């Protein structure tokens, strides 16, 4: 079923009808004929297709970078889509100038993606810092330049913007006056308002069986099928506060993205240690679209958010004919199978707020530090009372057909003292509890060895005074 679509692309209003599940990149390149956005992989792994999606939030525009190749086009309804063509209006913008000055492209095929990502960074960061700007490019691959000149270009842009500091204008106005973005950006809020689109209502199609969250798994795995399918775009289902606290329970909407989870004040307050490791999840444009619900339902054995939520002993609230509640560690029944009936939607994820003195740690090993799926991951949640473990939850990914809650290790650890011997014995139990297979991400022996080391790493990191790594290995 086609869907009516109304949005602003760069400077122009676009009104059309589309199959909502179609890849946004295809729509941009083939329908809009804007070929500056490139296709390098079609799987969210190269960033050549990066575009900005701008949304009105309390009369302010919030821009996020996304991989257009794996985003369903229906999700841009009522929003501002910015492609490389929309970033310069007649003359190059400052970031583009700096790229030219520093010679930051060779073949240039990746360049539009880098520049769009960087504009996204500057739009969402009032105090730009080189390291953070580089981190925001974790989804962009360049095969030619070796990145150094790109770094130099970013550095120049930051220095330029800082030298323009001083006037008290709003950030977006400053970006316009510093020639980081064209002037038309200033009119976008008004123009979007005039579209009078109810993003939430207009994208949800409750009749369609095929649910799409962010699409970062679905559009990689089954894009040909999704392109013409009737789809229920639930990404915009919850427009208001997605993470709330009620009666000591933290309630997280399944449509919460990894980025939103990371930036949430509530999570930062109660679970600060989690947010420190989220940079290991995919890349910024992936995190901007990847939902927690999608991560859980996709049921990959190495899903990172699922690993973390297992260690937080999460409960799932599922909406269908009735509303039901299942513990995450009882949810999976086998490889990619789970207690979810067709038509049911994961609505909410509940976790109890941690006790005082609770500690958390997440570890992940992959071949490349960034933008990589784990070979093996593990999360731990611990409450310690005078060196004795009073509560513990532990998960391991990549070592079984499902994201694993290590029941037996958890049982063993409860009530034990944090000590060298405890940890060694725990690791032995863990190794009996898992069933890793050999694949492209590593041999089964390697994964076992890795998981053992990750267990050690948890304790070494959380209790550096008690546990010394060198003695363990």
């Amino acid at each position, binding site marked *: 079923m086609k869907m009516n679509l109304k949005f602003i692309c760069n400077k122009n209003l676009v009104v059309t009808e589309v199959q909502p599940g179609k890849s946004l990149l295809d729509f941009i390149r083939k329908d809009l004929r804007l070929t500056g956005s490139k296709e390098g992989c079609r799987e969210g792994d190269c960033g050549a297709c990066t575009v900005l999606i701008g949304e009105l939030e309390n009369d302010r525009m919030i821009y996020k970078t996304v991989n257009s190749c794996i985003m369903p086009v229906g999700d841009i309804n009522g929003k501002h889509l910015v492609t490389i063509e929309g970033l310069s209006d007649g003359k190059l913008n400052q970031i583009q100038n700096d790229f030219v*000055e520093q010679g930051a492209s060779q073949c240039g095929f990746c360049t539009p993606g880098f520049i769009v990502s960087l504009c996204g960074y500057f739009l969402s960061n009032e105090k730009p810092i080189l390291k953070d700007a580089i981190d925001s490019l974790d989804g962009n691959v360049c095969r030619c330049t070796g990145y150094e000149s790109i770094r130099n270009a970013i550095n120049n842009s930051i220095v330029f913007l800082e030298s323009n500091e001083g006037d008290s204008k709003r950030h977006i106005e400053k970006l316009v006056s510093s020639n980081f973005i064209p002037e038309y950006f200033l009119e976008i809020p008004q123009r979007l308002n005039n579209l009078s689109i109810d993003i939430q209502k207009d994208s949800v199609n409750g009749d369609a069986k095929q649910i799409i969250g962010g699409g970062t798994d679905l559009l990689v795995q089954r894009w040909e099928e999704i392109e013409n399918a009737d789809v229920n775009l639930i990404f915009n289902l919850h427009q208001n506060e997605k993470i709330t606290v009620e009666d000591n329970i933290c309630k997280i909407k399944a449509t919460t993205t990894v980025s939103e989870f990371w930036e949430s004040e509530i999570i930062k307050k109660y679970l600060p240690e989690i947010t420190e490791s989220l940079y290991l999840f995919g890349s910024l444009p992936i995190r901007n679209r990847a939902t927690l619900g999608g991560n859980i339902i996709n049921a990959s054995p190495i899903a990172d958010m699922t690993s973390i939520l297992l260690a937080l002993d999460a409960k799932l609230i599922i909406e269908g004919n009735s509303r039901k509640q299942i513990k995450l560690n009882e949810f999976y029944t086998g490889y990619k199978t789970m207690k979810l009936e067709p038509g049911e939607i994961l609505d909410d994820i509940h976790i109890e707020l941690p006790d005082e003195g609770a500690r958390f740690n997440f570890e992940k090993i992959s071949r490349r530090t960034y933008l990589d799926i784990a070979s093996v991951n593990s999360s731990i949640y611990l409450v310690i009372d005078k060196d004795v473990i009073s509560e513990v939850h532990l998960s391991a990914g990549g070592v079984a057909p499902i994201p694993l809650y290590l029941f037996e290790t958890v049982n063993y650890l409860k009530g034990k003292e944090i000590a060298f011997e405890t940890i060694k014995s725990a690791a032995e139990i863990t190794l009996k509890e898992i069933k890793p297979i050999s694949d492209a991400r590593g041999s089964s022996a390697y994964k076992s060895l890795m998981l053992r080391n990750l267990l050690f790493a948890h304790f070494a990191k959380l209790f550096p005074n008690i546990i010394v790594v060198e003695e363990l290995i």
Partner: protein
Amino acid sequence: MSRKIIKSKYDLYEEKIETIAEVPSEKEKPLAPNSKLKYVGKDVNRYDGYDKVSGSAIYTIDKVLPNMVFARVMVSPHPHAKIKSIDVSKALKLKGVLHIITNENTSEIPWYYNTSKLFDKHLRYQGDEVACVAAETEKIAEEALSLIKVEYEIMPHVVTAESAMKENAPKIHNNGNFGRPSEYTRGNFDEGIKQADVTIEDTFTTQVEVHNPTEVHCSVVNWDGGKLTVWDSTQSIFSVRDNVAQSLGLNASDVRVVKKYMGGGFGSKLEAGKYTVMAALLAKKIGRPVKAAMNRREMNLSVGNRPDSNQTITIGTKKDGTFTAMSHIAYGVMGAYPSGSSSYWPLRSIYKCPNIKIDNKSIYINAGRARPFRAPGHVQGTFALESIIDDLALKLGMDPIELRLKNYTEVDQDGDVPYTSKLLKEAYEKGAEEIGWKNRNKIPGSQTGEIKTGIGMASQIWWGGGAPPSYATLKLNSDGSAKIFSGTQDIGTGTYTFMQQIAADVLEIPIDKVNVDLGDTGTMPYSGGSGGSMTAPSVSPAVYDAAIQMKQKLISNAAAILEVDESNLIYSSGNISSKNDSSKSIEIKDVVGKIHERVLVTTGARNENPNGYAINSFGAQFAKVEVDTMTGIVRVKKIVAAHDIGRVLNRKTLENQFYGGVIMGLGYALMENRVIDDYTGKVLTTNLHDYKMPTMQDMPDIKVIIVSEEDNLISPTGVKGIGEPAMIPTPGAIANAVFNAIGVRIKSLPITPDKILEALNSKS
């Protein structure tokens, strides 16, 4: 200016390439040193910068012609099979499908040096072409592929060299699984070993690396009567022209190949693809333009890779470190069709050694064919050689650099002739100083703590001196603007820019008056493929020659206009004036304006290489790494690249080229790896999720040091190429730094966390 015809000789591996070329008959006065020039050697911005950063650059994949249709290729899902039958009837019925070609309706077009055909019934790898569909949209073409019914006779496969070399292994070609061997001897290896006080022998292995340029291989083709135009994402327009013309039985002059922008190649785009020829066949039949593009999966299956290697190296030395004998016994997989996998050249050429024995075998397996990949053989060969040399240094109790210097050679070991220049010593010195060589672990692995740091280095040799034939045409207009045409291509390396710089400097005109058009066989003079670090050293003298001739032509014309003897005229800043009479002066644009046709044209040619010299580039790279002994993760902190590459044409594009080569070397050293499942024979790494390339977070600090200036024995511009040198020593330097950090040698690439952990485990 006078010309002569020569037999141009150029060494590349054991191939002595010989072609006939037109060259300037006399040696030209060289281009002034960079210090005297306004543009050459300076930080001039890229000529194509605007197009690239604005998104307005049109690549072949972006090209749309009116009425264009799309082709998709169906490939074998099996590593080894024969086609019993193909049924396309259902696919043809799909609305929007225009035509399908298979072996049944296509004449036999030989491919892969006659070992196969455009459509071969014998499919030798997962990715071998079965059929090609043209349809109104890509989507319909894709859907049609799934409707083609093929009955396969599945044959047993081999996907590793070890199993393919076995006597009873399934045969991929009638005459077996062995390709052309590379054998070489110098002196007498056995005698040399007898003279040795110390010998060392070890085996090193490297993985298959896939090019994965960001733009997929693709072509757009269009017929105009009997003439064919091909827009291609290619590194070599003339090779594509010749391949396509030959395949289709056309005159070369009837095929025009155009390439403006292309998204990377690294050696994988030096020849015509089957998809190009298929698109041309379909376009002819349908009478509409056709676009044929691969997808990322096919990029990882079909269009080339760096072959793997298993190299056993033996070195015999005197106590003082003098090499008496070296041998390199190796094999590697070249995929299902003829290519090469040898990796011995660094050992054969970089150090002084009188006794050498080499035996390299290239093995067929059921996988995609190898193609040249940025310094073919040298990257893997240098990793193995430079690793064992460090081990040997440890054994001899010598500093690794001291051992290399002990065996330093001032003459080419093959031809016994001097180098036009060799500044490797200087590279060692400057590089060692910059990395802090003194601070490396005197005893490898001796640091305590979870994170251990190490420093290592490796040396590099490559050819890259360029050769004729290479031509460039220069036109000067009556408004003072100039245009350069050359059938070379800018694959992102900066060809446009340096050509502009050289012309502007010779003619002494502002650089923005010089325009450059490259990459069109239909309208431009010949230049070779952009590979092997050949472009700048071949093309820069041609454009220089064109500009010098232009200057001369301007002076001659000015002499006639001003009625002054040529010898009394001075050329300066785009002005020609009389030495004696300051009233007699004319701007060059006015010279052109006074000429009947209002345009002056010259064509320059690359000079002949000097006789009696070897031309090589040299360099050394130094790496500083951190190894996390808990997780096995290696972080490269710094790379110093110190190189002898002749004249720097453009500092910006040069550094960029080095950065890119180093990062590619880092990817090869630490993560990139094509994995094939032995049991099914299928490639497991067919996307960028599974085939990992470095991202910005993997980037170390990179410092580029150039120890050379122009080498005018080579050419008047004095340039050596830098594309391959940039990558050759990186993996070896990283491997040696890892060894220096942990004290255990990882003998196989990529150096992944599991190998580090395993090595550390077995050490303790």
